């Protein structure tokens, strides 16, 4: 049993491919050749590290949109994890979804939609069974050096928030239709992330590196000039 941080996972489930490349999350760390990676993605992702491990893809976001109408993935991911392990029956999985969502006070029809979602995820996933992994001695113990004034937790670099590409969180992408847009700047004012700037003629330009896809702009646009597409660009 490992508790808390899992150094040598048999399985890793990743809710969005953009997390595969995140330097602080590092979901592939500790994975060995016989471990299994499940990625929620409608298409395959090509990165070098993935060649050594077994990768399974499933479009859980698509299924969640189909069954629940929202990109809420907990029941779907849970069902996939249960099936992958080969240890937990369909009945137990669906019972758990039902009970845990009821604990949150959700209404019966929402719970039922989640149960249907979990069922399809469970049935469409292949069981790979639980694998025992040998511990890989990856870690070297080191001494922490005293850094004097550099060891004080002061943040000196201003404006570093921009370094975090929060656009990777996006599930839906807002796209401005220049033919319908009247350059009223309402989206520019409402964007909570200040991701929309105006070009020299006053038309909005969305910074997709940082747009989280909250779609406030789409909701506020008086001309319905901002359409929405599902994000699938991560590859």
């Amino acid at each position, binding site marked *: 049993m*490992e*508790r*808390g941080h899992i150094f040598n996972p048999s399985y890793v489930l990743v809710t969005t491919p953009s997390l595969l490349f995140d330097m602080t999350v590092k979901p592939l760390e500790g994975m060995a050749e016989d471990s299994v990676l499940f990625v929620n993605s409608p298409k395959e992702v090509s990165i070098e590290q993935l060649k050594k491990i077994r990768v399974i893809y499933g479009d859980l976001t698509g299924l969640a949109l189909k069954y629940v109408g929202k990109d809420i993935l907990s029941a779907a991911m849970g069902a996939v994890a249960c099936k992958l392990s080969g240890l937990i029956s369909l009945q137990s999985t669906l019972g*758990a979804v039902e009970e845990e969502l009821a604990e949150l006070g959700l209404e019966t029809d929402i719970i039922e939609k989640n149960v249907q979602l979990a069922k399809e995820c469970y049935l469409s996933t292949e069981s790979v069974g639980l694998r025992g992994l040998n*511990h890989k001695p990856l*870690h*070297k113990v080191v001494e*922490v050096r005293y850094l004097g004034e550099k060891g004080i937790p002061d943040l*000196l670099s201003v404006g570093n928030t921009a*370094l975090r590409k929060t656009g990777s969180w996006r599930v839906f992408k807002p796209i401005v239709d220049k033919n319908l847009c009247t350059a009223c700047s309402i989206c520019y004012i409402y964007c909570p992330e200040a991701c929309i700037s105006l070009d020299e003629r006053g038309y909005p330009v969305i910074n997709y590196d940082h747009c989280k896809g909250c779609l406030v702009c789409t909701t506020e646009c008086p001309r319905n000039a901002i359409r929405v597409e599902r994000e699938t660009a991560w590859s």
Partner: protein
Amino acid sequence: MSKECDKSGEGDGMVLKMLTGSQAVAWAARLARVDYIPAYPITPQTEIIEILSEWVRKGEMDAMFVQMESEHSLLTAAGTAAATGARVFTATSSQGLLYGFEMLYNIAGWRAPLVLVNVARALAAPITLEPDHNDVLAARDSGFLQFHTENVQEALDLVLLAYRVAEDHRVLLPAIVNIDGFHLSYTRESVDLPEQSAVDEFLPEYKPVNPIRASAPVAKGTPVLIPPLYSFFKYQMHMASRNALNVFMDAAKEFERLFSRTYAPVEEYMLDDADTVIVMSNSFTSIGKQAVNAMREEGHKVGLLKIRLFRPFPTDDIIKSLRGKRCVVVIDQNISVGKGGITCPEIAEALYHLEDRPKVILPVIAGLGGKSISLEEFKHAVRVANRLASLRAGPDGPLLLFREDEAVLVESLLKLASGGQ
């Protein structure tokens, strides 16, 4: 995943549920039939009071739930309610515990038993949500009994045991039950949920001593400006706390009879033939046990001692487990800045006068702010202790565990924070 199922052949009514640590301690409060729950939210504790407020709202629990305006008020309300004879449950964490800190000493001084669950979270600054034990151990000297838990079952059971010990007239002191934030609070584990009737048998109604009544006023916590009087009452508290050791043993026997689970002040893991013993507490102990298994496979005689009851300090149990061992590696998931770990000196003091005391007692700091402890770090600490024993030398200071991969990450983040300078 909480499908109810009867374990065949183990009597009727045994219910296994998948519960988070938060749910488990909420269930313990419910099964203890608490009368009063003063509450204030703080991550990672809030789930506990959310569950309890929902049960009270739905009428599933016959208790009064009050949302206070701070932890200081919360603890004041909890202590004063306990002084009227109410059975009181409350929970907090980290900064919240420290914000209410002066009331801890007052409640203990009133000799008002209640149970407070602390969901461990490291203290600011720098701020974090991840666990270590500087919050709960800050309350070490307050007079509260302290129970530290490794898993979700233990969290539930020790809340019940804490009420029984705290309310015993040989003790009459409040208790803290510690559960680690995230690692227990939000982690679902299989829990045997006790039957209400069995809990009622284990925990009879709380019989307060000199309860405050409108019709019969009692002054509690009065000023004692005569110094020997202050000393006298503090000594009384100390002796009451020491009594809790035997009271706990009696309660644990009764608990085992009713619930078939055994609890002692400490838990030994592969200790019989061990020459090196790792001493730990709380949820990371599970990782320590895994490290012991791995080192055993390589032929090293390593064992682990888990401290479950921290106040009163189980000196005799610790002596019994550690005397005659070659090396003791005390892993403190806390730091007394400028000294080292908080529990290590207590272990060393317990062993000092023995002729067969260990050759080396190595103080180790690990897991601060939720930092993971890898197998290599456990091995390194065991190696350092054994090397010192061979050299007949003592440690220079606490071993501050850290890894190369972590150092690389920290270096890159420091660079980012300094703007690349």
